[in-house]
């Protein structure tokens, strides 16, 4: 059964069509890779799904709940998590605080309750910290909880960002180029982490990625975008053999899977 359904979604920026009638269905427990040349509309697709850029046309639903027209915060509260191409950790927070912030949608505290530090609030805070530590342990970063987010390496920041998105137990996770700029070892770790997120936490993942090797390895199915249109969809082997995909990448060797610039 489909978790996330994107139907006939289009969006243009100042006359330039970024997405043109894109359809996509993400099944429960699926890792879906989204690839395409630069400017194909991959990140735009994520921004449209999470509500930052509402589509001009089309429908999006998460477990049957329509998302178009909702604020990004409301969409996130429906169970949609995401990470960003340029990591967006909160620079004034420690790692633990960053991850705890991910629980915001689940905290029900009032401003008044916060100001008077009610017992209920203190208990909720303690529980939030415990959950954040659990998630940090899950991604293998528990040793870093007291560090400032900005002190971490690029790759570590990406993992923290994933943990921050995971803590609220989203049903769908959108990952925007989690492997960009990472070493091969790190990419393997990200690969394994994604599988564990799917298998142990039951989260469906929509993965936008330039590192073709990672996409081919981890994805159950792959969607290929080019100039805002979906030009192919299928399992990794089908995609590798698809002439339209090869044409779109124009000579880029899919089999070698060299990271794109």
């Amino acid at each position, binding site marked *: 059964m489909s978790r996330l359904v994107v139907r006939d979604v289009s969006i243009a920026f100042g006359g330039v069509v970024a997405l043109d009638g894109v359809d996509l269905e993400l099944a429960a427990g699926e890792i879906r890779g989204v690839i395409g040349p630069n400017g194909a509309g991959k990140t735009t697709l994520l921004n449209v799904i999470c509500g*930052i850029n509402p589509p001009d046309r089309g429908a999006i639903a998460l477990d049957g709940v329509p998302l178009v027209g909702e604020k990004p*915060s409301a969409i996130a509260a429906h169970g949609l998590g995401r990470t*960003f191409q340029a990591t*967006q950790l909160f620079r*004034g927070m420690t790692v633990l605080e960053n991850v705890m912030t991910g629980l915001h949608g689940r905290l029900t505290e009032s401003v008044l309750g916060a100001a008077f530090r009610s017992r209920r*609030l203190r208990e909720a805070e303690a529980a*939030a910290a415990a959950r954040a530590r659990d998630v940090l342990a899950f991604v293998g970063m528990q040793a870093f909880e007291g560090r400032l987010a900005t002190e971490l390496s690029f790759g570590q920041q990406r993992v923290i960002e994933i943990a921050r998105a995971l803590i609220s137990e989203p049903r769908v996770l959108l990952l925007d180029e989690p492997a960009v700029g990472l070493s091969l070892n790190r990419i393997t770790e990200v690969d394994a982490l994604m599988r564990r997120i799917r298998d142990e936490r039951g989260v469906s993942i929509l993965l936008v990625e330039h590192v073709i090797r990672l996409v081919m390895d981890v994805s159950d199915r792959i969607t290929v975008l080019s100039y805002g249109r979906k030009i192919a969809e299928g399992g990794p082997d089908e995609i590798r053999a698809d002439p339209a995909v090869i044409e779109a990448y124009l000579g880029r060797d899919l089999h070698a899977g060299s990271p794109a610039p």
Partner: protein
Amino acid sequence: MPALAGRRNVVVLAVLALAALPAMANPYILYVANIALIYAILAVGLNLLLGYAGQFAFANAALFGIGAYATGLFQVRLGLSFWAAFPAAVVFTTLVGLVVALPALRLSGLYLALVTLAFAQLTQWVMLNWERVTFGAGGFRVPPLTFGALAPALGLYYLTLLLTGLLVAAAWNTVRSGVGRALVAVRDSEVAAESLAIDLARHKAIAFSLSALYAGVAGGLYSALLSFVAPEGFDLFQMVVQFSMVVVGGLGSVWGSVLGAGLLVGLQEALRAFKGAQEIAFGLLLMACIIFLPDGLISLVKRRARGWDEPLRAPDRPA
């Protein structure tokens, strides 16, 4: 083990000293201490907006003025007692703060600064020109406050101390909660905050109304302390004084703001007779701290004494 010079001990000691102050200080010192407490409220409220939520607004001096005017005018024009006028004025100022927040929901950075600067000038204009209500440039006297058997100056001092304690504690609790984290999230990355189900509009409105509430309380107390309200105390220089207190103490630090308010009220008193010198001193302090000590004086305290850690950090700057 808590450190001897840690925050808890220092705060307890400071509160005890402030409570005992009337027994040993002359009326002038008591007056200055009262002003410092009022500015502590202002600076802490402004820091919630500027340092934590990262909303750069010029409205706080005007809101301070609105709190003072409303407290005074509700008494003089509507015949309310201070005890009715003051809370009503705080509510009124908070509502005005919410209205100021409306543009903030659509605007950010530079444009927010401009709209709030225009709002501040507009407020001055209303105070000066709506003479039928505000008494214009000359200002107006507020009826003296009585506290039963307690001397008025003493009563007001303890009322201020009580409210300062409450509001500083409330701010400190807020920044240690999910609300505080959400404010900092809005400051550090709006898109990331939204992706974590943090409603931007709601949290900007929270930050603006909190700072307005603090400014309203400070304004009401200020009008009672001076028994007089006039436009000139609430101009752009007032804004610079408050900015300086927050920045000198430490952006994004509740205790820094308390420290900054205490120190800078002292400086202001020392230069009371010289407007030009005050402007130069506050201007220079503001610049120097931003350039050389971006985390404020509180960062020196944190470096030297244990037990001063705070959750959440100042707005980011290059290492």
